[in-house]
């Protein structure tokens, strides 16, 4: 289950779409069936052709070095599903066609035959609380990545030292002071909880933390590919 929906999985049906679609989905000829998902669900993605994505390799390696099993460390990006069968809120940078920072984009942009996708649903939360996760994420739209945060993150990943202090006792080598994809979800989740709690997933929350966390339902909501019917 933690491998998510692979691009090699056969389509579970077909769909006729008359509206505009991201170039990736039009080219590949498939979209994601998100009908089983609900607002506030977590979306994890990873590139399957990792050789073409050195950033993803570095993040995965750093997460593995941080003690995560490969099946969790392989996830390199996180987003919040908004509940309309298509859109996600995510923090991203150097994403062609979009400004750096927190954006709303079509999940079908990941339908390029190269990305694996996984969905997770927060456990012990009402539908209204999960909706607040989506609201919490959207309230950050337009906020940018902190440049120093990107630098810290990249240096920790590329140096081979990883995100965590070697002893594993003194906590992370770097501290999250800005938004990255996984802290966007973390902030939105904490916004939904209200009150004053110990922060879920620690000071340095990565996609691997979200993949491994028991704070989500054990069974992932089902995802499948739909072939775009040719008219």
């Amino acid at each position, binding site marked *: 289950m933690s491998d998510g929906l692979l691009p090699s999985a056969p389509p579970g049906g077909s769909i006729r779409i008359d509206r505009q679609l991201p170039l990736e989905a039009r080219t590949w000829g498939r979209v994601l069936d998100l009908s089983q998902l609900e607002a506030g669900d977590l979306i994890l993605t990873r590139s399957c052709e990792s050789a073409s994505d050195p950033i993803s390799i570095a993040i995965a390696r750093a997460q593995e070095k941080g003690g995560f099993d490969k099946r969790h460390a392989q996830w390199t990006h996180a987003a919040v599903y908004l509940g309309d069968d298509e859109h996600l809120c995510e923090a991203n940078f150097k994403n062609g066609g979009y400004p750096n920072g927190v954006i709303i984009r079509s999940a079908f942009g990941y339908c390029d035959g190269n990305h694996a996708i996984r969905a997770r649903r927060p456990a012990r939360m009402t539908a209204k609380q999960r909706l607040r996760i989506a609201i*919490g994420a959207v309230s950050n739209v337009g906020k940018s990545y902190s440049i120093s945060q990107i630098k810290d993150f990249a240096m920790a990943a590329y140096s081979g030292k990883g995100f965590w202090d070697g002893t594993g006792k*003194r906590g992370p080598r770097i*501290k999250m002071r800005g938004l990255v994809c996984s802290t966007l979800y973390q902030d939105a989740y904490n916004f939904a909880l209200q*009150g*004053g*709690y*110990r*922060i879920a997933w620690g000071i340095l929350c990565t996609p691997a933390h979200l993949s491994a966390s028991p704070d989500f339902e054990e069974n992932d909501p089902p995802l499948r590919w739909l072939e775009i019917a040719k008219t």
Partner: protein
Amino acid sequence: MANEQEPTPRAAGGESHQLLEQQTKEFTARAKGALEARVQRLVPGSLVYVETASDDHPFVFGLSNVVIRQIDGSYSRYCGEPFGQLGLAVGSSVLVVDAPGPDATLIIDPARASQTGGLLSRARIRNLFKTR
């Protein structure tokens, strides 16, 4: 005649004064068991992350659980004031009451919020000795 049934500005002011007094009484009592904490990360309009010296796990507070201690010693609920106006920044000193839980409260005292560094440094030094 209708005016007689509507609260006069004075009466409304009296009610809000009563509420303020009630809040002040409540938070003055609760603040006695407060833990000192430092702001670790601010998400304007949404969240405040803080760390305490006694707990390795930082806390996160929604803004509905934030109160402000005024110069005269009274307490009022946070009402969207810009963090900068309250002197709140990463490293600022704050107080944590009844955490963790839905009724946990973060007390911002603008007079002490500007004090930065001490607790965090002590916590770091303590951790350093713990692991070496």
